[in-house]
């Protein structure tokens, strides 16, 4: 779960990391008031849970209250990579003389965390990492021992950041690590971490991603989850406990298992079609889950055909058939559905479907293999 900049900054600040003065605005009035408080020279930062907002015009400087209001009028309601802006963080302008990068993240390969520091920061850090890897210093943290001070000295030394800043940076890195541990985060990142004209080190942006699986141990964090900017269908899917991601194609996909779902999408692509979504009903899916899945996909107006690809291991094909029939029965679904049903209780499932197709006008096409199903679905989408 990714937090907004303003939420992450609040937490970072509680751990002693310096941030610029600023407040969250939910409307033009707020922007006016906050800009006045901050003396007019402000930065307006759209609060959207997506990267690259700077390049997409989601961050703007204003040199007066009036200018701030004008910018905010355009910024509220704009869409950045599909995310609608309904919150703006208004912050004082800083005179920055240097931008750096510091981040801590899960390191899968080394079964720990990576501490990454760079003497350069800002929007182009990823490119720099590829083109100038020598500008990126990192160490691996073994989580059972935690972060050693010598490791901080090591990355700071390798980063070639002037020694005068090491003491303050050491404090910031220790705070970030403490946040990582206390909040069971997957990522704590400051990019850019800026040095201002007074030599103060200030977090200009703040990123904090929490492990959703650990949220039960941090009930206070659940309230920080922001659904307002998320697609309506995605929100509904999450409510129903389904793993759904909207895409821009026209073939609805339902499969059981994440790997199976991806493989199904890949097959559609190989046949020349475009998947409208990723949807994993999960292992051992109930008829209820299958019904919900079909209803959610049917909400997407772009969907011309649904390909449902089930290989029953724990999942029972008769359960799947029941859910499918209920969805078609109750919701009068008119979209054609290509069905591939194999594995546990395959015959019972197929029998149920056969009966249903006879007694209804549902367009359900049963296929034998997933390869065949993908081909059929693409055909029907053209």
């Amino acid at each position: 779960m990714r937090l907004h900049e303003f939420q992450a900054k609040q937490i970072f600040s509680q751990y002693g990391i310096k941030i610029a003065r600023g407040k969250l605005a939910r409307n033009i009035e707020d922007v006016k008031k906050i800009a006045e408080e901050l003396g007019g020279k402000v930065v307006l930062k759209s609060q959207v849970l997506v990267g690259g907002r700077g390049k997409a015009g989601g961050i703007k400087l204003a040199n007066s209250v009036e200018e701030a209001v004008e910018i905010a009028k355009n910024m509220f309601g704009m869409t950045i990579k599909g995310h609608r802006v309904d919150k703006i963080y208004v912050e004082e302008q800083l005179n920055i003389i240097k931008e750096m990068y510091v981040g801590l993240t899960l390191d899968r390969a080394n079964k720990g965390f990576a501490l990454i520091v760079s003497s350069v920061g800002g929007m182009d850090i990823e490119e720099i990492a590829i083109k100038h890897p020598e500008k990126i210093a990192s160490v691996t943290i073994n989580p059972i021992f935690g972060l050693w001070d010598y490791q901080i000295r090591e990355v700071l030394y390798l980063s070639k950041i002037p020694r005068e800043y090491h003491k303050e940076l050491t404090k910031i890195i220790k705070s970030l690590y403490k946040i990582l541990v206390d909040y069971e985060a997957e990522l704590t990142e400051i990019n850019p971490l800026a040095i201002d004209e007074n030599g103060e080190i200030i977090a200009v942006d703040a990123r904090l991603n929490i492990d959703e699986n650990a949220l039960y141990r941090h009930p206070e964090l659940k309230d920080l989850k922001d659904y307002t900017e998320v697609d309506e269908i995605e929100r509904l899917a999450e409510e129903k406990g389904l793993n759904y991601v909207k895409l821009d194609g026209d073939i609805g996909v339902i499969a059981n298992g994440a790997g199976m779902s991806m493989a199904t999408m890949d097959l559609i692509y190989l046949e020349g079609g475009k998947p409208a979504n990723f949807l994993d009903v999960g292992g051992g899916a109930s008829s209820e889950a299958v019904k919900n899945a079909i209803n959610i996909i049917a909400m997407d107006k772009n969907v011309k055909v649904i390909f449902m690809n089930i290989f029953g291991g724990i999942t029972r094909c008769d359960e799947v058939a029941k859910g499918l029939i209920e969805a078609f029965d109750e919701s009068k679904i008119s979209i054609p559905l290509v069905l591939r049903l194999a594995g546990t209780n395959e015959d019972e499932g197929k029998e149920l479907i056969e009966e249903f197709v006879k007694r209804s006008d549902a367009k359900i096409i049963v296929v034998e293999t997933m390869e065949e199903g993908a081909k059929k679905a693409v055909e029907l989408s053209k």
Partner: protein
Amino acid sequence: MAIIIDEKTTAIVQGITGSQGRFHTQRMLAYGTRIVAGVTPGKGGSEVFGVPVFDRVKEAVDETGADASIIFVPAPFAGDAIAEAVDAGIKTIICITEGIPVHDELKIYRKVKERDAILIGPNCPGVMSVGKSHLGIMPPHIFMEGDVGIVSRSGTLTYQIAHNLTKLGVGQSTVVGIGGDRIIGTSFTEILKMFEEDEQTEIVVLIGEIGGTDEEDAAKFIEGMEKPVVAYIAGITAPPGKRMGHAGAIIEGGKGSAESKIKALREVGVEVGKTPMEVAEIVKRMKSRG
């Protein structure tokens, strides 16, 4: 022979009295797996399908001499269950549980290594040594005994490919689901090493997916393997997903995509099937040549 488990393996089921534990215990017993005890704290003294239930793993091990454990304990308690198992001397642990916090998984990884044990999973479908022993949640009827080893990060996709192989008359030796989580106990490379040394296995099928660099790392090992490997990688069209900030991109250094994985595997001579069926066909072809 087989890897990880075989007909001599005696196992306990942690979380045996839960609905998942109960359901799969019955199925594993039906397959012939030697389930000798179950453990659920507070349920000691009861029985599940004739299997005695204990309060503690240590008790279960002392009583039965079990050498493996399969874990169905809910996510908040699963890490603790794994620690209990390794501290009781169990050397092979298969953790089915999904949704374990990643900070717990990191700690457990070190705990298991400290005891020189093997952890398969978490969030995996388990291990099937075909015809010998099944510690997992796989549908047994789709497998056929043979000489193809399968190692996979995905559950259903594994069944699909095993099913395809069986339909083509190609049997399997051991089928291992290493789990879909970012931090797992055993990597592709570690399983490939076992298959390379397994007398029964002649060909290995590797089923990967986007994310992480485990497939790229495996490619390095495959370069020195005697036995041929056939691969399938899911996720060419997958949405980039929730990217881990800049930091994630920096440490993966351009790896992690399906393209990167397929490229790495092809460079070391691995045939990568475009569809699950093609994977089975490649294997079939190899065998008829071979």
